[in-house]
């Protein structure tokens, strides 16, 4: 009996002790994409700062595959000890759960959502050959010649694709979706005049907008962007309630002890306040996210999941 009590006490004490000693060995921050993309870059921005404040190496580990699902699933099934973290993104936690018919993890219940790191608006950009100078003119043009305009996107089921589908739906127009492998070749075809418009990530679209090779008509967020303050939002342009962003942030397996989550959230928030990280995230097109606590982040993810479930279903996009 006594032995049992000791065992019980021990079992209860373990999580607390674990949290206290945490971190006592290197932490892995899993990026579910190949090295070099914006999610990867921001993870590598954050890692050295966390390493400084936590006193243990923070290693970025790329686990790409299946649109990010492999890496996300890997962390979901890792030990909830605070040593396996995920840079979860809109794809892995809002779009894929509906886009893929079989998904091995639950975007809400298998994770603790620790901190939203980056949130970037998309911009509606048209090629210079397109006569429309505003969203209203573009809608009129699309109505006048249904099925004539082509909209490009970085891939089927990407935010750019879904933004386009939502646009079609809200304006009652028909445009042909042309999917690419990544946004870069799509932009090349946009500049070359072979496609008419794209909903591109603000940061990557900015240089060509500024040099006049393409024209921006609106941002996809409800708030105007600090980078192009004169550019209207789609909401202002008449598509009431249009509000899409691309985002990603740090997540942990669901049963990770709360003290570890709180400590992590605190250190990430501090790291993001430091000028070197802050300026660089801003350079990637990210205005400071309004989501600040783990609870807000979970609520945010849950809401995004709902929004995209609807959007993906209506767009008819699927991965079989």
């Amino acid at each position, binding site marked *: 009996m006594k032995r049992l009590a000791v065992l019980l006490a021990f079992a209860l004490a373990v999580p607390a002790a674990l949290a206290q000693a945490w971190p006592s060995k290197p932490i*892995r921050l899993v990026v579910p994409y190949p090295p070099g993309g914006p999610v990867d870059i921001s993870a590598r921005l954050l890692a050295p700062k966390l390493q400084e404040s936590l006193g243990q190496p923070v290693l970025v580990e790329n686990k790409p595959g299946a649109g990010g699902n492999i890496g996300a699933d890997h962390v979901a099934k890792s030990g909830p000890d605070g040593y396996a973290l995920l840079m979860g993104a809109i794809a892995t936690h809002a779009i894929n759960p509906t886009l893929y018919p079989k998904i091995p993890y639950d975007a809400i219940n298998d994770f603790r959502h620790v901190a939203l790191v980056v949130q970037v608006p998309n911009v509606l950009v048209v090629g210079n050959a397109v006569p429309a100078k505003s969203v209203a003119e573009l809608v009129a043009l699309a109505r006048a010649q249904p099925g004539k305009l082509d909209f490009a996107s970085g891939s089927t089921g990407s935010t750019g694709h879904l933004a386009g589908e939502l646009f079609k739906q809200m304006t009652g127009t028909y445009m042909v979706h042309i999917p690419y492998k990544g946004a870069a070749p799509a932009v090349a075809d946009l500049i070359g005049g072979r496609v008419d418009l794209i909903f591109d990530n603000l940061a990557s679209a900015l240089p060509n907008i500024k040099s006049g090779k393409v024209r921006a008509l609106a941002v996809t967020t409800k708030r105007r962007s600090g980078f192009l303050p004169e550019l209207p939002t789609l909401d202002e342009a008449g598509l009431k309630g249009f509000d899409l962003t691309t985002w990603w942030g740090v997540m942990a397996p669901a049963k990770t002890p709360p003290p570890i989550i709180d400590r992590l959230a605190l250190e990430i928030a501090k790291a993001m306040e430091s000028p070197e990280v802050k300026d660089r995230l801003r350079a990637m097109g990210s205005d400071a996210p309004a989501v600040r606590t783990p609870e807000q982040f979970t609520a945010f993810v849950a809401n995004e999941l709902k929004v995209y479930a609807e959007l993906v279903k209506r767009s008819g996009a699927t991965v079989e």
Partner: protein
Amino acid sequence: MRIKSPKDFWAGLMFIAFGLAAMIIALMNYQFGTSVRMGPGYFPAVLGGLMVFLGTVITATSLAIEGPKVPRLNFRPLLLVLTACVAYGYLIKPAGLVVATIALVFVSALGGHEFKWKEVSVLALLLIVFSVVVFVKGLTLPFPLWPEVFE
């Protein structure tokens, strides 16, 4: 009927098998579409068909024109080298780089012509040191050195 060119005969059969498999899987599972809106099955089905055709031509020619024989296969190096690689991949995370390297070097060395314990041990040691210095320390790849239980 006599197989005059065994290499071509088997090569042709291999192509036919690949082509048939691709065609059948594509036609059964993926939409074929039209030439305007090609479905995901269009390209693989056409290519599979082309491959069956090429394979048939190769096999048919092998019955007509004399060619080289298939050399004798030696399964020992084949199996040991492949096993060594796969063992490394599956050992490195749970057992660490040291154990994985030892396994790969010893198993693959068994596939060679001569196997001397001392030589192979020294080689394994050198490769472990090199891997640690270059990959783990130098390029900071996230590999564990030792089995998880010791961490």
